[in-house]
């Protein structure tokens, strides 16, 4: 299971540094004279960094803001506040030239291989377009060669270059998506639920491919997912999110073996254990209630209404991130008090 082979090659300087990232979506009412009646705080002050060559997992349930973070990093949307520094440069204030360079270095693999490939384009157009657009390769034959190489790197026969997306299986499509992402030799790839839409057997293949590519090309990943076993397998460190906030961040093993935040513990306890004997004996911490609306999040710690350990200060003030052990960050006053 634990095959994070290039742990040693992780550098010290972060490739990506996200500081106090906020993304609020205004909710408006009215047709011509629109007024804001509230804000959905999809991401509300999240900070983390990713070292070169490292894979950071971002987990949390649907709607917790993990995809929004990915999109902000990819510059598909502009954050409301905070900074995103990629390789020493603030991404939020890039000019056209800088944007072009940024697009070459940062790529994405999306969740649904069915909707993420343009149905009107053949595979060689999909994979070759970035090379052509960025002026890497304008010669037809050479471009076709590059595309064929990329397909082969991703485990696809080169003959597929002439196919349309609808003529391929889900796994093949996702490999095309990965080949496309690799075309410009990026440094950093955001994998937004990159395997969630695939069959379990295909998932394993794609995960292995992602791992191989990481080692071969020295890639850095932000791996957004909700399948905890996949995240543990692939990621060096894991960040856990709840309702737009970061609640815990540590080494993958630490998060999975000795989680501190009550939410992380509940999340992990929800994963069934394949052994019925262990499953019967192990403690089950079932969360009461629903995730509150991000438009009107609870005061203080957003998790407190569902937390059995909540104390008065949880209801009053937003918990600060503390570091009970080196490299293990948690946002919980109860845990902080114990440490």
């Amino acid at each position, binding site marked *: 299971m634990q095959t994070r082979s290039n742990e040693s090659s992780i550098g010290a300087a972060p490739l990506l540094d996200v500081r106090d990232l906020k993304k609020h979506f205004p909710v408006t009412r009215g*047709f*011509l004279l629109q007024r804001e009646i509230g804000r959905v705080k999809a991401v509300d002050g999240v900070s983390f960094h990713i070292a070169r060559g490292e894979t950071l997992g971002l987990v949390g349930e649907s709607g917790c803001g993990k995809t929004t973070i990915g*999109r902000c990093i*990819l510059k*598909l949307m502009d954050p409301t506040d905070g900074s995103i520094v990629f390789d020493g440069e603030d991404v939020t204030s890039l000019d056209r030239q800088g*944007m*072009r360079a940024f*697009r*070459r270095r*940062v*790529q*994405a693999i*999306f*969740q*649904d291989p069915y*909707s*993420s*490939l*343009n*149905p*009107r384009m053949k595979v060689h157009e999909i994979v070759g*377009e*970035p090379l052509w*657009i*960025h002026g890497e390769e304008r010669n037809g034959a050479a471009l076709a060669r590059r595309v064929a190489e990329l397909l082969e790197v991703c485990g696809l026969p080169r003959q597929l270059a002439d196919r*349309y997306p*609808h003529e391929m299986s889900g796994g093949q499509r996702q490999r095309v*998506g990965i080949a*496309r992402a690799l075309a410009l030799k990026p440094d950093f790839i955001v994998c937004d639920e990159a395997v969630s839409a695939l069959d379990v057997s295909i998932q394993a293949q794609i995960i292995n491919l992602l791992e191989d590519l990481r080692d071969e090309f020295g890639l850095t990943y932000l791996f957004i997912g909700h399948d905890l076993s996949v995240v543990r397998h692939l990621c060096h460190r894991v960040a856990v999110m709840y309702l737009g906030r970061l609640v815990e961040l540590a080494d993958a093993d630490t998060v999975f073996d000795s989680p501190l935040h009550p939410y992380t513990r509940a999340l992990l306890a929800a994963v069934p254990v394949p052994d019925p004997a262990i499953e019967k004996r192990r403690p089950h911490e079932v969360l009461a209630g629903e995730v509150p609306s991000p438009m009107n999040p609870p005061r203080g710690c957003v998790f407190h209404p569902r937390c059995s350990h909540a104390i008065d200060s949880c209801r009053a003030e937003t918990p600060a991130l503390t570091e009970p052990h080196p490299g293990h960050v948690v946002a919980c006053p109860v845990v902080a008090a114990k440490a």
Partner: protein
Amino acid sequence: MTRYIAKRLLGALVVMWAVATLVFIMLRAVPGDPLEAMLFDSGAGPETIAVLRAKYGLDDPLYIQYGKYFVNVVQGDLGSSIYGSRVPVTQIITESLPRTLSLAGLSFIVALVIAIPAGLISAIKRHSWYDHGFTFFAFLGLSMPDFWVGILLIIVFAANLQWLPAIGYQPLSEGFWPWFKHLILPSIAVGTAFSAIVARMIRSSMLEVLKMDYMNVARSKGLLEPRLVMVHAFPNALIPVVTVMGIAFALLMAGAVVVENVFAIKGLGRVLIQGILNRDYPVVQGAILVVSAIFVLTNLVVDVLYAVIDPRIRFE
């Protein structure tokens, strides 16, 4: 593909046969008779009527009339108008069809020239002032009857400003400008209403496409906005738009009757209306046959275009 088109053309023949038969029966089922209409106040006696009736074959039993009509149509003979100098129906149609096609074609172009940019910008800048403003004008355009718009255009551009002729038609053989200037006002009158429909269709179809993940993929490739819209989004949004445009074009063929009247263009619509009022059986039958042929062909073109637009659509 060739086989598919051949099959569809065969089907088209069946449809046209059904239309021709239906029109034949319905014309004779409605009250009134061509000779009564023709000789209404001429004071002709019953003998004259009987002679004329025999001359036009109108005293034959229906199945004989139908048989004769059918044999002639198959041979390309649509008969002659029963009025005046008995002009052959094919001649009436070859004279009026270019007018209607010109008007429909230009209206179509007017509609597209307005609709494509309007729809695209509305979708891209959704909920902007532009979008709301356009929505308002689209509904305004739809709510104003085209003949009334035509009359307004005549008042402003023909009567007051005297920039363009108010009525009439010049064939294309007389030169492009004389042909074009007679059609500008009527095509604007007809085209604006259709542009509203097509633009709304483009807007909603584009909004659907812009939400797709492959648009995010395209953006993350580093493409600029024009290429994103024109290469990645718009072609994918075309299917419903082409459907609506096909229907619109077919409707223009017979639907511009009132506007043809306002601008005194003797197109297919006017021929048809006059034919019905006069109970001129051959003219009505011929004109409807041509209109139905255009309907069927337009539908076929739209279906073939689907396959061109979307590689996922293949015909057997």
